[in-house]
């Protein structure tokens, strides 16, 4: 959507207009010390926006020749004309320009209006977008605050100081109710909606950098959370956009930019930049991470994940269980048991911690078949993510109502003809990645001679080549196995083992 400056002359009617350009001295203090100040009803001079009156704030990126630096226009009554003790409509629009500024940076800049305005003594700013709620204290008026243009200039000055990539900034403040409502509906809302839609539609390939999160490294020292547009943090708290906003404000903080580097595996989601970062942050423990793979170099799991995925070799499918489900999953294990094994920042094949937001992702474990490999999840979780499940899979994923054990699950999957029964074709490239169940496979007497494995084996990508053996799971770590001969013999009727 193209960004345009509001044509003040066209909407002005008979509303008062006040214009001021350039720097000035302020009669009030500006300091981070005032952050958090709460102006009580009895102490306020006026309320702007809030629950009783319309209001909004908006940052709009414009070409540099359209922005007049440090200019403020106020449409409507100024502080001295607003009735004391009452609530009034309020809009704050900022036009920003700079060589690094584009539309995608608008919301990052817009968030800071809240921070900067709270640096102003006697001025309380709450919420964001169309929910803004401002109170100006009597103490500010006593100190000599006379005009909202002073507030606008102080805010613009802070924007330029704290975000030096803003080369030019201009403000339009409005207290006229009719204009505020009209612009909110016709100008601001479409921009807010477009921003959210863009974020929803943004994919890993559309951006140059991902973000890390090390907030929980105190619990999981080798955990490296990589947050990409298609993969939110495991705890569910931080999206790519949050990471971006945080990294812009504090580049050395817990959310740092991770340049993607070269794309190694487009389906698994492996990037050289991510691998290098993982190696560095995990102290060399992990050198490869695939963002959208369950079995091959999966993302590490902290202790915070909202949901854990678990592979069930008996059905060659993946189940998911969330923290709130206390019963054992069909594999006989509870969330906490599995979380205990997986957590702590380890890369464990067969288990994967994720945030609930990851179920929305178009790349949701796409290397391993995505939704077409999912066989079970608790009802509560399934309902929460239902609209993201492909139509043809919705009825094929069992919940505790259909299956509590592997046997029940097998029955269910057979009945609904789940893709794992006949073989999963992963949608991303149309490749058939599992063979399906081989029914009643007879284990004939086999002699395998001189099978030799030199290196520590990768736990193989499980597919049906592993014969279904209920109740046995082997986890082999850092092992060198040399085998000269394996003899597998079927037990004869009546033979004692």
């Amino acid at each position: 959507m193209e960004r345009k400056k509001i044509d003040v002359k066209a909407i002005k009617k008979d509303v008062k207009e006040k214009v001021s350009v350039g720097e000035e001295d302020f009669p009030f203090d500006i300091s981070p010390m005032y952050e958090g100040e709460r102006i009580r009803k009895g102490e306020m001079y006026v309320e702007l926006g809030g629950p009783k009156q319309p209001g909004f704030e908006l940052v709009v990126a414009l070409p540099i020749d359209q922005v007049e630096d440090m200019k403020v226009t106020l449409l409507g009554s100024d502080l001295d004309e607003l009735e004391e003790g009452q609530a009034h409509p309020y809009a704050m629009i900022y036009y920003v320009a700079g060589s690094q500024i584009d539309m995608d940076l608008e919301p990052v800049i817009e968030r800071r209006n809240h921070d900067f305005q709270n640096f102003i003594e006697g001025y309380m700013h709450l919420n964001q977008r169309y929910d803004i709620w401002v109170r100006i204290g009597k103490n500010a008026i006593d100190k000599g605050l006379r005009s909202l243009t002073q507030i606008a200039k102080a805010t613009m000055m802070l924007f330029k100081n704290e975000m030096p990539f803003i080369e030019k900034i201009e403000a339009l403040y409005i207290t006229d109710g009719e204009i505020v409502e009209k612009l909110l509906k016709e100008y601001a809302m479409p921009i807010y909606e477009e921003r959210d839609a863009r974020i929803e539609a943004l994919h890993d390939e559309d951006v140059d950098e991902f973000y890390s999160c090390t907030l929980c490294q105190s619990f999981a020292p080798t955990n490296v959370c990589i947050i990409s547009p298609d993969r939110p943090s495991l705890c569910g708290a931080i999206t790519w956009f949050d990471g971006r906003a945080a990294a812009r404000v504090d580049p050395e903080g817990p959310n740092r930019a991770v340049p993607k580097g070269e794309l190694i595996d487009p389906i698994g989601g492996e990037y050289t930049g991510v691998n290098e970062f993982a190696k560095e942050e995990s102290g060399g423990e992990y050198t490869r991470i695939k963002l959208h793979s369950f079995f091959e170099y999966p993302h590490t799991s902290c202790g915070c994940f909202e949901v854990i995925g678990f592979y069930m070799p008996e059905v060659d499918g993946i189940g998911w269980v969330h923290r709130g489900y206390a019963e054992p999953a069909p594999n006989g294990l509870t969330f906490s048991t599995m979380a205990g094994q997986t957590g702590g920042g380890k890369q464990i094949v067969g288990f994967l911690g994720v945030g609930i937001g990851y179920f929305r992702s178009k790349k949701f474990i796409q290397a391993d078949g995505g939704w077409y490999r999912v066989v079970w999840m608790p009802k509560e979780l399934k309902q929460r993510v239902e609209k993201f499940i492909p139509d043809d899979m919705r009825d094929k994923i069992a919940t505790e109502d259909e299956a509590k054990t592997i046997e029940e699950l097998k029955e269910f999957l057979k009945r609904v003809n789940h893709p794992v029964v006949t073989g999963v074709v992963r949608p991303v490239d149309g490749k058939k990645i599992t063979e399906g169940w081989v029914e009643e496979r007879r284990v004939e007497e086999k002699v395998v001679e001189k099978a030799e494995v030199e290196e520590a084996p990768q736990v193989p990508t499980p597919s049906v080549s592993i014969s279904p053996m209920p109740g046995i799971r082997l986890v082999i770590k850092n092992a060198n196995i040399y085998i000269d001969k394996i003899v597998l013999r079927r037990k004869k009727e009546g033979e004692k083992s």
Partner: protein
Amino acid sequence: MAVLLVYFLSRKYRVLAVDADPDSNLADALGIEGYKTLGEIRELFQHSRDDFGTMSKESWLKGKIYGEVIFEADDFDVLIMGRPEGEGCYCFTNNMLRAILRKLMRHYDVVVVDCEAGLEHISRKTIDSADVILVVTDASRKGFKTASRIRELAKELGLKAKMYLIANKVREGEENVITRYAKSEGFRLLDILPYDEEVAKADLKGLPIPLDCRVAKKVEKLAGVLICEANP
């Protein structure tokens, strides 16, 4: 006790009363309703945070706290903590909450935190920036035992707060037991508040405590003493 302190302190100072007891006694005693608890907002946040798009989560959380959780009484503000966290990871949420509350609290002259009876808040260091900790007990063996354990724990954790003992609901003739206990433990006994029929009645009927009763008069004096103790 905490209620009366809040009343008297708010005559002279900007006061934030924090109810850190999940049963929210302070809210009832102050006669306030129609508020949300911090716990409720925290749960709401945990469940809706996937839908924020490009909006700021911290700003949302702060707006809810300032707008819906903090209750504006005539002379003071009240913050009810409510239920403790549910299942899930609260690292991110609690990190933000701490930052928001820290910034909020520095704008008050006095913050009175009414804790649940017991060791929880001491052991979790939720009140480690307190200037003064008042340990309130009655004249019972159980009360003394808890008081002693709170004191030991605070020492172990290296809390810098000054710690005082206050005896409450003490009937005539029991004063000796209290003074003896305080002396043997080396506890500084700040005051002994008598059992007051009027307070008990008001409590039963759910009415505010009359500010002219015996206990109230004593707490009023205490409020003055505490302010001096906190600002030497």
